[in-house]
């Protein structure tokens, strides 16, 4: 992967001026490449990673395994993209193994998610069955630990 993307993936707020220094490039070159990645759709969005558990949001997240019948010409894509368009659906992945699609769905409470599953999801053409699990606590999200890491325990000066 382009080192520029490695840096941004690690910290999307890194300034082009700083990135230019790290990579020995000109600032203009860095800005140009970032713009290109955005245009090509390689970079799709910049988001903050929150520790939702700290926020008391009245929100639950369900992980839902979905079995679907693949369609002739189109396979899983059509039903997957239909599902993806629901705003309560956070993530959708096509999986190998015992089920086909894995969904992360957010709702205000258990009932709201249950309604979404029974009324919207399960009734979609092609959906054979669903299996819903509720998330209890987040320990790590997108490579970021949710607990504060310990302070630097190194000696202040060493050879």
């Amino acid at each position, binding site marked *: 992967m382009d080192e520029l993307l*490695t840096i941004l993936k690690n910290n999307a707020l890194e300034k082009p001026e700083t990135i230019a*220094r*790290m990579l020995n490039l000109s600032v203009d070159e860095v800005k140009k490449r970032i713009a290109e990645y955005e245009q090509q759709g390689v970079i799709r969005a910049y988001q903050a990673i929150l520790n939702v558990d700290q926020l008391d949001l009245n929100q639950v997240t369900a992980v839902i395994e979905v079995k679907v019948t693949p369609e002739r010409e189109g396979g899983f894509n059509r039903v997957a993209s239909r599902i993806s368009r629901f705003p309560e659906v956070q993530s959708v992945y096509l999986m190998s193994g015992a089920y086909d699609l894995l969904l992360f769905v957010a709702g205000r409470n258990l009932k709201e998610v249950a309604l979404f599953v029974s009324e919207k999801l399960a009734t979609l053409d092609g959906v054979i069955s669903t299996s819903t699990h509720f998330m209890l606590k987040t320990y790590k999200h997108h490579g970021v630990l949710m607990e504060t890491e310990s302070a*630097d325990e190194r*000696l*202040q*000066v*060493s*050879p």
Partner: protein
Amino acid sequence: MPTNDSRSLHSFIARHVVDIPRSGIRDFFDIVSTMKDVISLGIGEPDFDTPWHVREFTVFALEHGATHYTSNMGLLELRRAIALYVEKTFRASYDPEKEILITVGVSEALDLALRALLNPGDEVLYHEPCYVSYRADVVLAHGRPLTVETRRDNDFRLTRAMLERQATPRTKLLLLNFPNNPTGATLRKEDLEEIAAFARERDLLVITDEIYAELTHDGEHTSIASLPGMKERTIFLHGFSKAWAMTGFRLGYACAPPELTEAMMKVHQYTMLCAPTMSQKAAIEALTKPETDVKVMADEYRRRRNLLVRGFEDIGLPCSRPGGAFYAFPSIGHLGISSRDFALKLLEEEKVAVVPGTAFGACGEGFVRCAYATSMDNLQEAMKRMGRFVKRLKNS
């Protein structure tokens, strides 16, 4: 005539130990450790944590009883893993049964090599600025250190001509450390070839401390042990502290021809017995898993190096581009202040800790060592503060 009980304790201490000066780094540490909110560029160890799989495996090993002595040489499984790694990475092949000795860090390996090889008065050629232990270790082994000073106008390279000027018929060993602490200097292959030729012609043994080899930022690292006719006269030292961020595990190794390994082993067996068993287990885990750990860290050091070098340019501190390790050695000589005063004032006024170059040898005067084993944010803040500080010095 003083009676026995009036004899001062100081007079009991061996003369050659008394003569060794206190490390300039310890001195500085004492001052820094009394202060709060300091950004330290003075730390000679990685800021990364030891890769989790290594730590996790160490716990597993402890649970499963890795708490006894190992053979003096170290676990054979580890020596075999090291043999494979050194062959692949450094292009030098060693017999894990007879030519690899596991030690408590490169520090112990160096001490063993010097004690095993030096008769009182034998001379050791080494280059300064260098790691703080070299000179002291030579003296502790009753050898005579011969200093070759590397210079900034030459990017702190070491050349055959510089060695020739210092060598005498009593010179027995040549001690090398590239990539270098504190300058970050690396050697060009052609320089290394000439140095090797010099060692062969003068019949010198070479001790090479290549602890920073994996953190080579430009080009490829070449080990002197891989050059023709050198393996048989080289003691190759390496370990896990820097590239794997395993400083506290205290694990290193020496690779050398069987006779030399045997001699070092003798000293090791009577003084250390063996390296910590759980650390040896950890090292097996570190070596036998893919090297992505090392690469991720090395890439980050290189990016920081780039950032820092540009930063020094901006604030007007001339600095050779460090080719490896995680140190930059900018020059402050033109500011009309000693390295020590620069470091003290910078600490006092801007709360940034750097190490005076003189801690690494007299020719380090006029320089400070800045370790970039700290976060990008810290580096940027430190550069800002140093910039302010240098500006004030120039205007005063």
